[in-house]
């Protein structure tokens, strides 16, 4: 993934999604405010945000289901307009909870999705059933499927016509751990081998970290930050936690070596300076020289959840 990010930095960008000051207001409530973002070809861009942050409203505006109060969106080089027929031939999507016609079988639901994309070959239905692991359920009515399989069917409907751009709203919802891994592998394969671009929202931060090339953090309708995964790693707080027998002696030894240590509730010492984090062996040496060798040195990285909450200003001082 890192390789792809570096490559995309070197080459001129082919923007698959571009929004300019996209805004949606419902009366006095601003759901999305001045949202400008760009997603490059072959990229997995993840939209992070709390419930009600504006993720789904943004996706619906991108799909021409909601008219922006002002601003514009362009996808695959075509301006998105309400009720328009373009550029949907090359776009697959899954918005909010996936739904299917409950009385139709999985195969029939996919056949309906295929017919909604003229030019999609008949065999695409069976191929998609195989690809999404739905073969055992192909003749089952969609109304009898488990939540995880309804999610798979929703993804299958989004992919049946082999789109160039996929918009997914919480694609891992309802999937078991094996299903999450399977879908992640599928999305990675599609971006790497077929050059498909993925724009997705998610609240599973660990999943985002494994999958995304870039993330956009949205809060209260505003895009707070955009960063690539390296930037995310840089911005997460890290600290070196040291366990010693004699805290006071250790603190003095560290101070003598130029490090300030903070005492934690469990009696350990925490060091946040870059020198300590990058060279924990120097810390160990300083402690040994001070006659209080360390029992344990542990490099702790801020949890993604904590970083995210800190960034959006919710309970972020952990």
């Amino acid at each position, binding site marked *: 993934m890192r390789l792809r990010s570096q490559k995309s930095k070197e080459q001129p960008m082919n923007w698959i999604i571009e929004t300019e000051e996209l805004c949606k207001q419902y009366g006095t409530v601003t759901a999305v405010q001045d949202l400008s973002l760009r997603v490059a070809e072959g990229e997995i861009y993840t939209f992070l945000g709390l419930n009600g942050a504006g993720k789904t409203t943004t996706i*619906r505006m991108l799909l021409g289901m909601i*008219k922006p109060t002002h601003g514009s969106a362009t996808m695959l080089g075509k301006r998105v307009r309400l*009720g328009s*027929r373009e550029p949907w*031939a090359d776009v697959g999507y899954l918005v909010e909870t996936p739904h299917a016609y409950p009385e*139709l079988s999985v195969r029939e639901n996919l056949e309906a999705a295929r017919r909604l994309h003229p030019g999609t070959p008949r065999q695409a239905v069976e191929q998609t059933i195989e690809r999404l692991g739905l073969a055992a359920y192909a003749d089952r009515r969609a109304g009898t499927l488990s939540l995880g399989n309804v999610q798979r069917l929703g993804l299958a*409907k989004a992919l049946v016509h082999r789109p160039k751009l996929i918009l997914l709203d919480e694609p891992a919802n309802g999937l078991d751990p094996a299903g999450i891994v399977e879908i992640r592998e599928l999305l990675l394969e599609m971006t790497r081998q077929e050059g498909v671009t993925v724009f997705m929202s998610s609240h599973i931060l660990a999943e985002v970290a494994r999958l995304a090339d870039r993330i956009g953090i949205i809060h209260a309708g505003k895009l707070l930050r955009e960063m690539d995964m390296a930037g995310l790693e840089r911005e997460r707080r890290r600290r070196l936690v040291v366990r010693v027998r004699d805290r006071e002696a250790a603190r003095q030894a560290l101070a003598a070596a130029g490090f300030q240590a903070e005492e934690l509730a469990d009696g350990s010492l925490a060091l946040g300076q870059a020198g300590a984090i990058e060279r924990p062996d120097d810390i160990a040496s300083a402690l040994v020289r001070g006659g209080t060798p360390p029992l344990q040195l542990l490099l702790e990285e801020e949890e993604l959840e904590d970083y995210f909450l800190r960034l959006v200003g919710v309970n972020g001082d952990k």
Partner: protein
Amino acid sequence: MNTLPDMFWIELRKVLRSRVPFFTALGFLFMPFIGALLIFIYKDPQLARQLGLLGAKANLTVSSADWPGYLNLLIEFTALGGFFFFCLAISWTFGREFTDGTLKDLLAVPVPRFAILLAKFLVAALWCAVLILETYLVGLGLGAAIRLPGGTPAVILHGVGMAAATAVMSILLVMPFGFFASLGRGYLLPIGIALLALILGNLSMTLGWGEYFPWAIPGMFLQEPHLPFFSYIIVVCTSLAGVAGTYFWWKYADQNR
């Protein structure tokens, strides 16, 4: 519009796989059976007296125990009951996309919105036509079974012609309920408006304005087949307004579900 056959296939498949058409067909079957039962009772006053209220009702409803009377009864039943069942059919066709959450799958697709909607209207109209056909095939069979007198080809043809004309008007007049189902994002609004339309239709007929009120016109037609031309124009315009309203609503309204 070369996508219309595919859209028609999708809509037809949804209807055929659902239980709702079965229940509407079952509901429609009551009409010829009740009509035949009332005629049967009317033919035998002794039995009518023994049956008490049902007999009294039969005496009030049936004009004559022969084919013209029986066919009139069927047409009245299908005009009133048919309208309501047609409303159910079209409300389900459109409203289900909202209640099942499947609307979003029809919006960002490379198919003209009009083809999707036209397929829905056509399938709903076909559904209504099949219900009418069912009613009259069963009705004619039952009429023959209870050996009604006066079943000349001219009487039967006139009855079937009146039934067909009433059915066409009823089908045209339920088209706006596709719009009401879309506007109300489900079934409640169209069914509520259908009840209101029936009440207002009766009221307008009582007040002598029936030929101006769209949903009273089929009832007026049964009483007086030679309605003013503008009444038929009102029926067609109401239908077109319903189709146009549905199209513009699906194309330009924000879709949050």
